[in-house]
């Protein structure tokens, strides 16, 4: 029997019993929709995580000063550790294999003022190779240069949030901002960055848009510390050539620092990439759970289809007998009923895809949760709905085909 006849028949079968067909497809609809929605939520989370870690640098190891109370700080100093220093950074660069470059930064919390406006900010003194190591893009001007660094110039680069607060619609470039009684010339403004709404390892959550960057040399010269016991710098970022060797390298760094700090662990070593991998592993578990839910859902949908088809076949015993009497072969009857089952599951699949896409958009529209729909998820979900139709339509179709024409034609 020709394919188009089958398709016509199948669609008519569906339309003739709209309500019943709809109820039958509910399982498929929800199965497909939930797969697409959950996959898109998962994908959104994955992309957000990657973006987050990319900001920190995929090949980076971050050595961060531990936040200690004054008393703890006294004890550590008494045990001869001076905390993180620029020397630590240069030793690491020299000795540790695979290190491409290191960047050091010192920080204080302060205020920045421009004319009548002021805003709280973290002032960060950095070495110029910072920009190569981290994903900081400027919206205006340039980042701190080697020239600025070498000449201890009083220049600064503003975070997007600071620029917006202090300058509103004015152009900040070339203007002077007052930080800690120092007038600093604005040479650049950064693009807005994603907020760190959670801690990454031991890196505290922060809004990077409220940072102001100045050359480290200028920082050390011009800004005084609140606490005389503070270490020279607060963070060293180490860029490694091969992400496979991050853990090894970090162990070496730790050994060096332990020596320099006289076995005082007044620092933390954070490997963003490893943390990302960890999160990825957890997401695998989530994905598998999701897969199980979807599979069960589609299974239930399939059973629904099989149930309805079995009843349908019984209802149409006479019709099957007539078709067989006028020349339908078993295979003709099989394909007729499998087509009907597939028609139901495909229609359910299409509705499910539509629903899934809508839900994904709704979720990202109304909540903070990001979603991202990938084509493969739609193809897979839809493909499964087709398979379910074929798989669960098979048994009823086989039953129909095996009915004896002699008996079924007399069925009441």
């Amino acid at each position, binding site marked *: *029997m*020709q394919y188009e*006849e089958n398709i016509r028949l199948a669609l*008519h079968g569906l339309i*003739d019993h709209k309500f019943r067909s709809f109820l039958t497809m509910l399982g498929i609809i929800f199965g497909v929709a939930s797969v697409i929605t959950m996959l898109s939520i998962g994908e959104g989370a994955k992309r957000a995580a990657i973006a987050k870690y990319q900001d920190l640098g995929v090949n980076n190891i971050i050595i961060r000063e531990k936040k200690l109370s004054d008393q703890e700080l006294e004890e550590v100093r008494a045990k001869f550790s001076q905390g993180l220093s620029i020397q630590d950074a240069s030793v690491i660069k020299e000795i540790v294999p695979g290190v491409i470059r290191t960047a050091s930064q010192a920080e204080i919390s302060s205020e920045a003022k421009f004319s009548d406006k002021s805003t709280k900010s973290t002032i960060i003194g950095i070495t110029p190779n910072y920009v190569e190591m981290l994903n900081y893009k400027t919206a205006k001007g340039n980042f701190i240069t080697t020239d600025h660094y070498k000449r201890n110039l009083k220049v600064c680069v503003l975070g997007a949030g600071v620029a917006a607060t202090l300058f509103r619609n004015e152009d900040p470039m070339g203007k002077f901002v007052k930080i800690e009684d120092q007038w600093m010339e604005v040479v650049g403004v950064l693009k807005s960055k994603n907020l760190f709404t959670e801690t990454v390892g031991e890196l505290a959550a922060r809004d990077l848009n409220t940072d102001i960057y100045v050359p480290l040399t200028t920082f050390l010269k011009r800004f005084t510390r609140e606490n005389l016991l503070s270490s020279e710098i607060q963070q060293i970022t180490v860029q490694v050539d091969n992400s496979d060797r991050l853990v090894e390298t970090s162990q070496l760094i730790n050994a060096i620092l332990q020596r320099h700090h006289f076995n005082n662990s007044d620092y933390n070593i954070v490997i963003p990439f490893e943390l990302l991998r960890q999160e990825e592993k957890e997401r695998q578990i989530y994905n598998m759970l999701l897969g199980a839910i979807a599979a069960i859902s589609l299974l239930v949908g399939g059973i629904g289809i099989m149930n309805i088809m079995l009843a349908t076949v019984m209802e149409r015993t*006479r*019709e099957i007998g*007539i*078709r*067989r*009497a*006028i*020349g*339908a*072969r*078993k*295979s*003709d009857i099989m394909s007729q009923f499998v087509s009907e089952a597939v028609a139901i599951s495909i229609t359910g699949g299409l509705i499910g895809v539509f629903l899934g896409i809508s839900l994904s958009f709704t979720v990202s529209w109304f909540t903070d949760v990001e979603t991202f729909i990938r084509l493969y998820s739609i193809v897979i979900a839809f493909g499964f709905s087709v398979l379910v139709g074929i798989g669960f339509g098979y048994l009823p179709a086989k039953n129909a085909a095996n009915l004896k*024409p*002699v008996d079924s*034609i007399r069925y009441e």
Partner: protein
Amino acid sequence: MLIEIKDLTKNYVMGDVEVPALMDINLQIQKNEYLAIMGPSGSGKSTLMNILGCLDTPTTGQYLFNKTDVSSLNDDQLSIMRNKEIGFIFQNFNLLPRLNALQNVELPMIYAGIKSDIRRERALMALDRVGLSERLLHKSSEMSGGQRQRVAIARALVSKPGILLADEPTGALDSKTGEEIMLLFKELHADGNTIILITHEQEIANHANRTIFIKDGRIHSDLQNSIKELHMNDHIPTNIQHTNLPL
């Protein structure tokens, strides 16, 4: 010779007992014959019809249709046989209720794999032959009994079958409509069709040229009728005792 049945038996298995439905059937049918198979209920006439119509296969013996040994055919081959050679006409019409008249008549051709434009043409021709040119797009629920039977006859004709096999064709019709249908069968016979009527009514059987009586699973008699007019109020069979029984 169109049909030859040799030493045919058919047994049904009910539990662990074998129930004989047909025994020692020997029968020959030529092209363009018009014959009736008569018998009381339980006589085996339905079983014989099923076998003639390739809906069932004999337990022993041979059924040759146009020299083809039907008894050795598999399920698919039987289906093809039914599609091409057997035109069924049933007492309760057996049209598909969700299809209209035209679609019902086209159905056998769909299973034969015939293209849609040719199907349409042939279906229209068959419907015209049975006197139905209107109401083609109506479903059977929208038609009278007589019209439905005509559609069924058109469906039976459409593959130009070897035999038309009619099981109590007027059983569900009033006497006037029944007569119209029997008149149609007469015309179809004149067209060259081979017609086999299954009936328990003598009046209907009288329209045929030959009557086979079946009783208790065996052929009781096989007689040529010599009539050529229908006597509606006259129930006396006017057969001449010309027996066709093998000796």
